[in-house]
């Protein structure tokens, strides 16, 4: 019985860990690589959920067509935000970007409240709900699909950064923008493409998780906090780090909630961050540390 309990806690933790890694992916790119401290990350996630609700409930699309449409729309949105807003504060240090994204997050939350209201919204799921048992362990089909799509997105984003010309241009630009532009890279486009990719990943995770929980205008704050925890744990700009950070957070929360108390589970992430900052400030897998 105790082993059953342990296995179920572990499964819960791993599932949550993949979800955390997924929701932090966009921030890994924008904060970790571009060095924009993006406080609007949670709001991009929220917009993904809300537009996901719109395309599945109003336009009547199935989940995966909806996901594709949300990806296109949010990529365009991210591109525009970078070209018209982030562009203006680039190269001026971190503070203007922080102020800008805080302002953007307040604007996005209130615009959403104005347009769709504060009610929680249901995003139609990819598969039917209902329990699925592996021996004593319960999960749902929807969660397994979300874990699968999550892993695919993480792998896809990793391949884009590591294997494509665009990815090479991104890495070059963030290492040395001057040298990159001298070598003929249109850095403006690269910044915008990275921001758009980060925004899209955040939105896709918002829609995916919105189909399991619900989408709501005010979810952004908590998502931003947890994503910063994951990115700091894992190390800036590292996909492996995001996965490790996500899993660490998910499993730690599950065991804390399981064996101690569920009422204070949000404390766990911050304790982990304090520990990692004390003992390994560059994060578990930092790619910046080598360069610093």
């Amino acid at each position: 019985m105790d082993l059953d309990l342990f296995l179920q806690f572990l499964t819960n933790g791993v599932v949550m860990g993949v979800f955390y890694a997924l929701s932090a992916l966009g921030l890994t790119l924008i904060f970790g690589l571009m060095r924009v401290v993006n406080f609007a990350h949670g709001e991009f996630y929220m917009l993904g959920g809300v537009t996901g609700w719109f395309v599945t409930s109003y336009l009547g699309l199935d989940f995966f067509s909806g996901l594709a449409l949300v990806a296109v729309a949010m990529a365009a949105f991210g591109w525009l935000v970078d070209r018209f807003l982030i562009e203006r504060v680039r190269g001026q240090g971190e503070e203007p970007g922080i102020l800008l994204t805080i302002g953007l997050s307040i604007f996005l939350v209130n615009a959403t409240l104005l347009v769709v209201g504060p009610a929680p919204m249901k995003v139609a799921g990819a598969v039917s709900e209902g329990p699925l048992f592996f021996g004593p362990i319960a999960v749902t089909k929807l969660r397994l699909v979300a874990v699968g799509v999550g892993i695919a997105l993480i792998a896809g984003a990793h391949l884009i950064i590591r294997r494509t010309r665009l990815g090479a241009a991104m890495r070059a630009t963030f290492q040395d923008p001057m040298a990159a532009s001298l070598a003929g890279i249109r850095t403006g486009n690269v910044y915008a493409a990275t921001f758009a990719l980060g925004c899209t990943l955040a939105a896709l995770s918002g829609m995916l998780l919105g189909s399991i929980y619900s989408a709501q205008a005010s979810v952004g704050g908590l998502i931003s906090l947890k994503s910063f925890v994951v990115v700091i744990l894992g190390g800036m700009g590292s996909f492996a780090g995001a996965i490790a950070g996500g899993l660490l957070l998910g499993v730690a929360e599950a065991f804390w909630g399981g064996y101690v108390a569920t009422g204070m589970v949000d404390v766990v992430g911050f304790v982990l961050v304090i520990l990692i900052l004390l003992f390994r400030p560059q994060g578990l897998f930092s790619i910046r540390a080598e360069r610093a």
Partner: protein
Amino acid sequence: MKRLVLGSLLLAGAAAPLSAQAQDTIKIGMVEPLTGSVAYNGKSVVEGAKLAVEEMNAAGGILGKKIELVIEDGQCTPANSVNAVEKLVQKDKVAALVGAFCSSATAAIMPVAQKYKIPLVTGVSSQASLTEQGNPYFFRAAETDALMAKAFAKILANDLKLTKVAYIGVNDDWGRGGVEEFSRDLSALGAKSVLTEYFDHGTTDFFTLLTKLRAAKPDGVFVAAETQDGSILVKQIREMGLDAKVFGVGSWATADFINLTGSAAEGIHAAVPYASSMDAPRNQTFVKSYEAKYRVKPGKYGAAGYNALNITAQAIARAGNTDAEAIRAALAKTQYEAPNGVYRFTEKGQAYGFDAVLVRIEGGQPKVIASTPVDAPH
């Protein structure tokens, strides 16, 4: 001249052109959470209140004047709610206040209302101690958890044949209060308490908590949670393959809750002070006009806003003027015929006499299975 004053006020960027016409309307201030985690429920309260004002103004208003509702966002936090009240009193010069949803926020604005001698009516805040503070300006037109537990514990224990019960509540004074009151009354009736757990507002994943719940093998699960947390929790109880009977308190008898929860809502029980399916002629009229205006049936909070505004405005009408002492005296003598029974206040300002119901969700509709008037606390 008046236009000049109005113009300069507008130029100053103030929302104060209202005060230029202060003598034309009777103002009632309202503090509710319009942003933040319970914004959705706060909005329902405001909708109910607006409907009440509209109906009264259509019937000619009170004291020969129209009622004007001034709404401020208190965000459910003590600090913001106090700021909102200061603004409503100092700038808008309201005759009475309604608010502030969360018990902690209401507790913070009660001394402010007393300081300015403005009557304050809440239609929501249910923490028992609020009416025990001896604040003569405070009236609670809502149930407390203790009253609900007393009214329904016996019916629940017998109808659901509860022997082992698990208690889950949101981690705030309301959730903890609900869990304590119900576990005390159900334990006294012989249902053993096997698990008590709390979760934070805005939690989305309950699998860890539910793993513990499964290990405790209860036959009934009590839940104190609002629409969003509650719908996700109830859904995940079924996703974990648990078939324990679910019952609890919160805004569950609403279309939104049932829509969000889907088939997992079938068969659950909720103890609520109001359900749109309550079988009273006054309620049918109320549901009809609410649905005509908002295209959704009223829930617990829509009714709460509607009732609180009616109680306040009717007291002002009976007082015959906007003098605070006269309004307070009139409020104490309230005998308001609500969609859900008749509201009266005890000496401490606690409402009683209205009906509370136990509903079961059947076929996507809240079906009333028991109804009982809420007695005055002893």
